[in-house]
């Protein structure tokens, strides 16, 4: 880790982000969604699952999607090779980029939660769950971005990531019974576990989210190693 190199990459990516019309609109998606939710609820309190859907929407449509697009573009345009050939380590490269995504994601999340009501999230375990979820979605974005090799092909992954991981609690709205296999599987997904953390104060659920993050880290690492050479 080298702070100067991380800063150089952060600075470059912030500038690049600001000039990228496709990415700059993404942070507004959860904010608009939050505004719509509060209009429909007529000032009433939103159910917890709805609040976590806002979180999921932010992390999938902002965190994962932006990271995915940025990584895929670096890979496709071969600018990533230039970074890899410089003395910057892969940690420097990924941390520099992640800081940009973190800044954008947390700004978007904070505004959205302030709109729908941030109070339910204000306790230590919920905050830890939110951070672990962020890391999961971030690493998932890095992995998929490198794996899909081009910006055009990331679009095939954005929707599945949103529906599987971002809107998991919606499964209840599909009318599938709680005992069905699909529900059982969905229940282990990170966003559902975050709801468990909130409702049951469960350390186990935090551990499960951490496991998801570790899995995503391994996936991202493998994909990154593959891009550093032509072999």
């Amino acid at each position, binding site marked *: 880790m080298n702070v100067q190199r991380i800063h150089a990459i952060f600075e470059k990516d912030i500038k690049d982000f600001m*000039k990228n019309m496709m990415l700059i609109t993404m942070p507004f998606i959860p904010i608009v969604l939050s505004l719509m939710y509060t209009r429909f609820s007529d000032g009433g309190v939103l159910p917890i699952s709805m609040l976590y859907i806002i979180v999921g929407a932010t992390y999938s449509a902002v965190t994962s999607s932006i990271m995915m697009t940025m990584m895929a573009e670096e890979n496709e345009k*071969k600018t990533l090779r230039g970074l890899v050939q410089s*003395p910057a380590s892969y940690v420097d490269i990924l941390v520099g980029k992640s800081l940009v995504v973190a800044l954008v994601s947390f700004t978007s999340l904070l505004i959205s939660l302030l709109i729908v009501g941030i109070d339910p999230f204000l306790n230590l375990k919920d905050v830890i769950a939110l951070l672990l979820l962020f890391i999961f979605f971030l690493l998932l974005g890095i992995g998929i971005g490198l794996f899909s090799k081009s910006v055009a092909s990331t679009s095939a992954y954005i929707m599945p990531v949103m529906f599987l991981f971002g809107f998991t609690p919606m499964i209840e709205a599909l009318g599938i019974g709680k005992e069905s296999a699909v529900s059982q599987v969905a229940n282990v997904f990170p966003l559902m576990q975050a709801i468990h953390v909130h409702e049951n104060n469960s350390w186990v659920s935090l551990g499960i989210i951490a496991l998801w993050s570790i899995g995503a880290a391994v996936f991202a690492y493998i994909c990154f190693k593959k891009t550093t050479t*032509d072999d």
Partner: protein
Amino acid sequence: MENSIEVSDLHKSFGKKTAIKDVSFHVEKGEIFGLLGPSGSGKTTTIKILTGELTQTHGKVTALGTDASRFSTADYKSKIGILSDNSSLYERLSIYDNLKLFCKLYNVPLKQIDVMLQEVNLHEERQTTVSKLSKGMKQRVMLAKALIHKPELVFLDEPTSALDPGNMAHIHRSLQKLNEAGTTIFLTTHNMEEATALCDRVAFLHKGELQELDCPSALRYKYSTHAFHVETVQGDRLVIENVPENANRMKELIGNGHVKSIHTDHPTLGQVFLKVTGEELVS
């Protein structure tokens, strides 16, 4: 003399296809070394092995005293510069911002940006967005990027392929200056005049095998027919083979005062290229 690059019995295959066959050579510290050869002969593959972008199938490769297995270390990376077909720029950013990134990554003072932009003749365009540049301009920015940290050793894969003669001459002067300051340059080119003008030594690669390696003048001498081209005062042009039997004839011509000019016939490096790689010159 210390060597910057040492390659012995280098072999590289892609699946069943062999791209490099048992190639051995070395590059001396401080020289400009040209790797020449037809398209597909393995030049880029060789450069990629030397920069750690590809791993050799077998053979020993060292550069700057570093073994190929350690080419991915920050120490080696900070000492080399690379311009290859994998080089590119951030299209939405200005020339200046692109170079600023690399200055910071290599820990070079930002004033080096202006120095480099003068070297590649792009000082006026420093604030221009890269996506608005022509191909040759982009190539010059990538060259500036490759050289910004004054590397000990640079790899340039066809560095001037998109340049007009004026800018090419400008870049040649910059490269010579860099070389005089101590940088070893390893380059590939399809431009034989460039190789003749720049390179201390050149190697010819053909179908993955090293055919020749020497300084351009020695190769031109080696492939010369050694015939005398004589122009007489009467305006006749004679080609006289350089063999003992013709000694008296030459003496006679010169003694009679019939000779206006004599020169020996050295092929250009381009002609040497065609002979070495066995491709016929179509006239």
